[in-house]
């Protein structure tokens, strides 16, 4: 039942930093791993030990299950936190950890398997009396046309074998079905090694609302309230908040009750999220995310609960330290994901080298960041750099602080999603809390006003002048030579 003395974090970026901080608060010694490209990253700096992985390719680094288990064993770690993504929801890896006597900080392999099979998860929700979107079990191509007519158009094709927005295709009419099916199967095979797909009713303008769950190994299940995550693009969340604005109290109550019911039916353990679509007064279960989520801080800020610490407690066998009635919600919290993506170029990943970072701080602002000057944003990993989370006694206060924080945030070397976030915060629909999952489609790099063009011209001209008149330091080559000379001496 004791907490592990050492814990290995099988992840990188902001979530690795987040887990390290939870370890410090629990007086657990955190051990980091890192791919060569991440050698200067904050999680390497902040851990007690940092172990180099053989390559940058995920299969050699953060997806390298057997090596990660071996490194945990070698460094005396009694637990392993997978973060999100990578191996977080991989039942085989969870089983590997268990076999090695390593506490996997997440649900056990069998729970991961049940939640990862979306059809099974839907069936569990259905069995719990929780509404699900009209849909099908995994379909074969030959019956797909008939099944699609039964579900009705528009509909979504979704991968049965995994989540994260991969393999999802929208089909507006029967004529698009065959080609979309082909694409979806190909993507599902590539992403999850499983070509099975199923069909699901598609709502025109629903809101995405999810419920945070904690479940211990003694059968205790509590919810930590809901999060609104409707600001999405290609099924990737961009902004999340808690509580969900404009959600009637009765509907919220129904959602959180349904979430606890689904978790119980699934025999859920550790931290998880039950996702729903809300359409008017109706709501529908969509899936379970069997991991800690990117957006967990908004829940932490309104409940005061450290979710990562709770994960570690549960994984070490401790019962939940709170009953449902102990929880209180205070204020509002908002999260903007800062990714190295170019919102002016279709949100394409912006690869390159970050050469300067200034992060926001101050009242009501929390930054969970994995960004560092010198960081190479590579094609190997997710482009998420950091998250800005703001709180306030009111939603308006949290939004005002977010605007202030984004203004303070300066990242040089790559494009980021900051311009999109500034746009979103100023939309009337967002300000009123009346936004749905189509909200982000409204982003259109607006043509700059004449005043903005004038300011850009001033700035560009001064920048040009500055570049032409400011000398650069001697190139790296020269310094390299000096270091070489020094090393040579030390070899003598």
């Amino acid at each position, binding site marked *: 039942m004791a907490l592990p003395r050492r814990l290995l974090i099988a992840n990188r970026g902001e979530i690795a930093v987040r887990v390290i901080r939870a370890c410090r608060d629990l007086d657990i010694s955190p051990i980091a791993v890192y791919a060569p490209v991440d050698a200067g990253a904050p999680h390497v700096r902040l851990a007690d030990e940092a172990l180099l992985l053989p390559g940058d390719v995920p299969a050699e680094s953060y997806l390298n299950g057997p090596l990660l288990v071996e490194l945990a064993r070698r460094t005396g770690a009694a637990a392993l936190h997978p973060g999100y993504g990578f191996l977080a929801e991989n039942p085989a890896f969870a089983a590997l950890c268990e076999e090695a006597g390593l506490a996997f900080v997440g649900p056990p392999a069998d729970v991961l398997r049940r939640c990862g099979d979306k059809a099974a998860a839907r069936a569990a929700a259905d069995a719990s009396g929780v509404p699900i979107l009209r849909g099908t079990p995994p379909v074969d191509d030959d019956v797909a046309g008939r099944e699609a007519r039964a579900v009705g158009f528009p509909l979504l094709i979704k991968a049965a074998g995994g989540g994260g927005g991969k393999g999802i295709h929208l089909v507006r009419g029967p004529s698009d079905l065959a080609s979309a099916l082909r694409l979806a199967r190909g993507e599902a095979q590539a992403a999850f090694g499983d070509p099975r797909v199923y069909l699901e009713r598609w709502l025109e303008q629903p809101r995405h609302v999810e419920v945070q769950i904690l479940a211990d190994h003694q059968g205790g299940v509590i919810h930590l309230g809901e999060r609104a995550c409707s600001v999405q693009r290609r099924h990737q969340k961009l902004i999340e908040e808690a509580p969900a604005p404009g959600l009637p109290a009765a509907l919220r109550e129904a959602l959180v009750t349904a979430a606890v019911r689904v978790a119980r039916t699934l025999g859920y353990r550790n931290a998880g999220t039950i996702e729903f679509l809300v359409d008017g007064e109706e709501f529908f279960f969509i899936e379970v995310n069997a991991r800690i989520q990117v957006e967990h801080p908004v829940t932490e800020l309104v409940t005061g609960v450290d979710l990562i610490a709770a994960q570690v407690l549960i994984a070490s066998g401790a019962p939940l330290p709170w009953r449902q009635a102990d929880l209180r919600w205070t204020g509002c919290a908002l999260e903007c994901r800062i990714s190295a993506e170019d919102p002016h170029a279709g949100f394409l990943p912006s690869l390159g080298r970050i050469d300067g970072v200034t992060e926001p701080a101050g009242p009501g602002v929390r930054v969970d960041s994995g960004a560092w000057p010198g960081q190479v944003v590579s094609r190997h990993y997710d482009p998420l750099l950091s998250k800005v989370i703001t709180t306030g006694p009111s939603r308006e206060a949290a939004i005002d602080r977010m605007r202030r924080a984004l203004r303070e945030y*300066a990242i040089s070397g790559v494009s980021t999603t900051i311009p999109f976030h500034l746009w979103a915060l100023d939309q009337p629909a967002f300000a009123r809390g009346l936004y749905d999952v189509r909200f982000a489609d409204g982003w259109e*790099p607006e043509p700059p*006003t004449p005043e903005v063009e004038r300011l*850009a011209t*001033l*700035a560009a001209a*001064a920048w040009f002048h500055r570049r032409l008149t400011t000398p650069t330091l001697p190139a790296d080559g020269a310094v390299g030579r000096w270091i070489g000379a020094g090393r040579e001496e030390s070899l003598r």
Partner: protein
Amino acid sequence: MRVEATVSGHRRIVEVRGTADEYIIRVGGEAVPFRLRPDAGSECFRLEVGGQTIPVRICAAGGGASVIIGTARVAVGLRRALPIPSRRNAGLGASARREVRAPIPGLVVAVPVAQGATVAPHTPVAIIEAMKMQMEVPAAAAGRIEDLRVRPGQEVAGGAVLAVIACPPDATGMDAPAVAGQGA
């Protein structure tokens, strides 16, 4: 320095004077004092103008810069405007030597003149490449190339002497804005 800035197909001559981060810009007759303070790394600045400060990200793009300002991105074409001849250096008296210096650090890609050649103020003495942009360096005075100090392929520092010109007493000089305020 006079800069030709092109935004949305509209070309403007912008005159930038200043040192370090403090500038006065003259655009369309209007003088705008402002600051461009470095904020983070090579691309992030804070533009202090008209009583407000605006965070901007400026990165080299094509033959100019891409400026991210609030939610907008503005592509600005940039090149050094051709200087305007004037009589400023007239009446300097006896024959004088005049140095032609590199306006920027960069790579000398061509030297279109030869030692001893006679040049007019606009004759290019060298072409320097920096930031993937090429720039002609004019003689800036009429005269004879007395000492040619660079050759193609050579890296030069900003301010390095490229050539020395021996000017006749009444050589025509180049216009340059007078030194103002914080320097020009």
